[in-house]
């Protein structure tokens, strides 16, 4: 059982079925990228985890303890950052963290120590005495991470923390989340795949209310790696390429060949076994090879494959 276990959770809003028997687990120490397009049910799942929404069926466990809707014991184990965090604008950042600390039962010394530490981590130490109502969206997002970490949660849940931010704000939040991974397990939802590739080691793709793809990111990529080899050729040889392609197509280990400009790509049965043979075949046809690369599957390709 993982730190977070979602077990056969279903949820509908009226006739709209958002989650359909969704199951997955998040292991301790991982950074889990929860991917899905807008409206796929990521926020719904997260709200069920923190007890703000009631699942129609199924259970959620945090560290083995069942989440009960409307009650909050398991929330002591979770730090939650909603997509648009709303704060009390009349407080300053330090007061807000103190308020959060008191709710979770921390003592004054702990609160002081932790607030200073977290405000430095998220880069708000110089704005900590300013009222929150004057904060930018990025600053609120950073304060959101600080409040979520206030009580040393086992699991940090962030709902699209970078979606509404400008590139600089996005980069800052990702940098903070990368640092946070040393302190806690992170579940992070997004539809920005580049963000996932940057900081996550595990992913889950939510599609049609179910996890359409899930597991260790590297393992998934290697499982879904297509044996495609790319060759960059000299421009002088381009006009020959069409003929060469037709010729090579007859070789038994070639499955598919395509040509785009000076880039020649070939799907083979096995890169390891057939790469050398193909290289030799091209060289035998007097082509100058400027580059050779085994194509890595991008998360974007995997994602599009899964949802199509």
């Amino acid at each position, binding site marked *: 059982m993982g730190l977070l276990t979602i077990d056969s959770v279903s949820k509908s809003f009226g006739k709209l079925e958002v989650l359909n028997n969704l199951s997955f687990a998040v292991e301790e120490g991982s950074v889990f990228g929860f991917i899905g397009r807008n409206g796929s049910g990521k926020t719904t799942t997260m*709200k069920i985890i*923190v*007890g*703000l*929404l*009631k699942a129609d069926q199924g259970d959620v466990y945090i560290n083995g303890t069942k989440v009960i*809707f*409307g*009650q*909050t*014991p398991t*929330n*002591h184990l*979770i730090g*939650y950052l*909603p997509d*648009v*965090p*709303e*704060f*009390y604008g*009349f*407080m300053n950042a330090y*007061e807000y963290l103190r*308020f*959060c600390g*008191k*709710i*979770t*039962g921390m003592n004054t010394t702990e609160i002081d120590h932790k607030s200073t530490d977290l405000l430095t981590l998220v880069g708000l130490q110089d704005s900590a005495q300013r009222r929150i109502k004057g904060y930018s969206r990025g600053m609120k997002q950073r304060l*959101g991470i600080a*409040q979520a970490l*206030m*009580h040393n949660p086992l699991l940090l849940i962030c709902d699209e923390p970078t979606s509404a931010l400008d590139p600089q704000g996005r980069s800052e939040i990702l940098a903070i989340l990368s640092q946070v991974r040393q302190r806690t397990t992170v579940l992070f939802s997004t539809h920005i795949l580049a963000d996932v590739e940057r900081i996550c080691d595990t992913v889950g793709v939510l599609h049609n209310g179910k996890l359409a793809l899930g597991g260790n990111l590297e393992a998934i990529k290697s499982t879904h790696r297509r044996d495609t080899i790319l060759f960059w050729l000299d421009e002088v040889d381009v006009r020959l390429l069409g003929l060469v392609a037709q010729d090579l197509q007859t070789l038994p280990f070639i499955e598919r060949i395509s040509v785009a400009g000076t880039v020649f790509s070939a799907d083979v049965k096995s890169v390891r076994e057939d790469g050398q043979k193909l290289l030799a075949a091209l060289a035998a046809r007097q082509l100058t090879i400027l580059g050779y690369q085994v194509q890595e599957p991008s998360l974007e390709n995997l994602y599009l494959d899964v949802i199509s």
Partner: protein
Amino acid sequence: MNGFGAFFSKEIVQTLRSFRLLIVVGIFILLGLMNAPMAKFTPQILELAGVGELTGAMGLAEPTALDAWMQFFGNVAQMGILAILLICGAALSGEKSKGTLVLPLTKGLGRAGVILAKYLVATLLWALGMLVAALVSWALTLAIFPGENFPNLVFSIAMLWLFGQFLLSLIPLSSVLFKGSMSGLIIPGAILFILLILTSFPDLFFWNPALLATGGANILMEAKEPLDYLVAGIVSLVTIVGAPLVAILVFRKTSL
């Protein structure tokens, strides 16, 4: 009731920084200031307006302290209650619709704590407002109409306070049942409207808490006895305790 203390402190700071306390004190001082001078000068004002001629030889009766207190009950029962409802009506529904409760609730703050802290602050504001208005009114009445005493004055004022508290106790329930930033006013507004209509039939609807609002004046005039309002008082007390408890139960089952 996890986090009640922290949430109540936050409510107090918010009441101060949003000037709600200042506004309540200001409004109720005004409501206290108006009564005795209004009673004193109403005959002159009417005379200046030419009403004196219409009343002819009968003239207008000399104003007394009772007139000042009639003004008090009229003003506080209308403007005072309206003001406190508007000031406290959005406290919970506003937070619910804005989403500011999400973070503290997901930190482990109990939902009962939210309801009770907000109800307690509304209760304190209303009690303070009533106290301020009554003290100012009492001091001015004593100055303008010296020597007049009413043995049931405190009881009469308490009846009006009880009715206001009855309406305030409906705000949490209204806030959790309905959506929208001002939804806290839906049930108190609707109940107030219905009960005011029912006050036209005081004998039939003797349990009507709205009778408490005008009851104080009747008792001062010795037209009614305190015991005449016993059932209305009990209905109010039960609501004052019961409605927030029901609101807690409903809120625990509310998705946010």
